[in-house]
């Protein structure tokens, strides 16, 4: 997951691109003709310090390698944010970034 965060007009603008196949469970493997099991991010959370500033729940209609953008108040340049996704297999990944 890559995160770009910067302050613009008093708001922290966050853009993130997560690397994830986002398999719907409805797609067939072209070679074996069998369904590829579902595996998709269900939850993406962003924390600024201890505060949750963004919480997204995803279904199967979110594109492969999900991209999100949002903005929140109360942060300043140099602050840290941490984003965590959890997928349908309960796998999880946290990535931190510094607000520029």
């Amino acid at each position, binding site marked *: 997951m890559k995160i770009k965060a910067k302050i613009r007009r008093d708001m922290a603008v966050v853009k993130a691109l997560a690397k994830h196949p986002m398999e719907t469970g409805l797609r067939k493997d072209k070679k074996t003709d069998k369904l590829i099991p579902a595996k998709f991010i269900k939850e993406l959370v962003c924390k600024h310090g201890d505060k949750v500033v963004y919480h997204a729940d995803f279904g199967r*209609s979110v594109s492969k390698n999900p991209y999100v953008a949002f903005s929140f108040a109360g942060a300043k340049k140099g602050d840290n944010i941490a984003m965590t996704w959890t997928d349908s297999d309960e796998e999880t*990944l946290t990535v931190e970034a510094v607000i520029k």
Partner: protein
Amino acid sequence: MRKNRRLLLKSLLGITTMATAMTAMPRLAMAKWSKAFDSSSVDDALDDLYGTTELTTDDTITLKIPEIAENGAVVPVTVKTKMDNVTKISIFAEKNPQPLAASFTLPEGTAPNVSIRIRLGESQIVKAVVEADGKLYTTEQEVKVTIGGCGG
């Protein structure tokens, strides 16, 4: 565009130095992922997510989505509104097998302005639902999904 790209280049070069710590963390105990994401109709999903299907159409909500999708697998969507006290924004793709694409919970201080890229299996209506002051408002737009020629 060119200016954007120059900025982008800078960030491209800077990106590897950006502090990124990867740690496995226990799953955050947040609001439970809703079974609404498994529902096969918009109404069921609405009911599961909000406990109601009553929506007020409000065209002041901005639903920015292309009228003709370049690539059905990657359709950029932005939902934003000037309403106050927005607590939730959700996006539905009516004809997808499970229409609820994403639902955003926005704590105080987070702007009611979210972007995401979604998949659209075919041409259909995409609906945005905004929860503000406990009430549900909606707007929608038709998106045509074309099957590629040679570019795709």
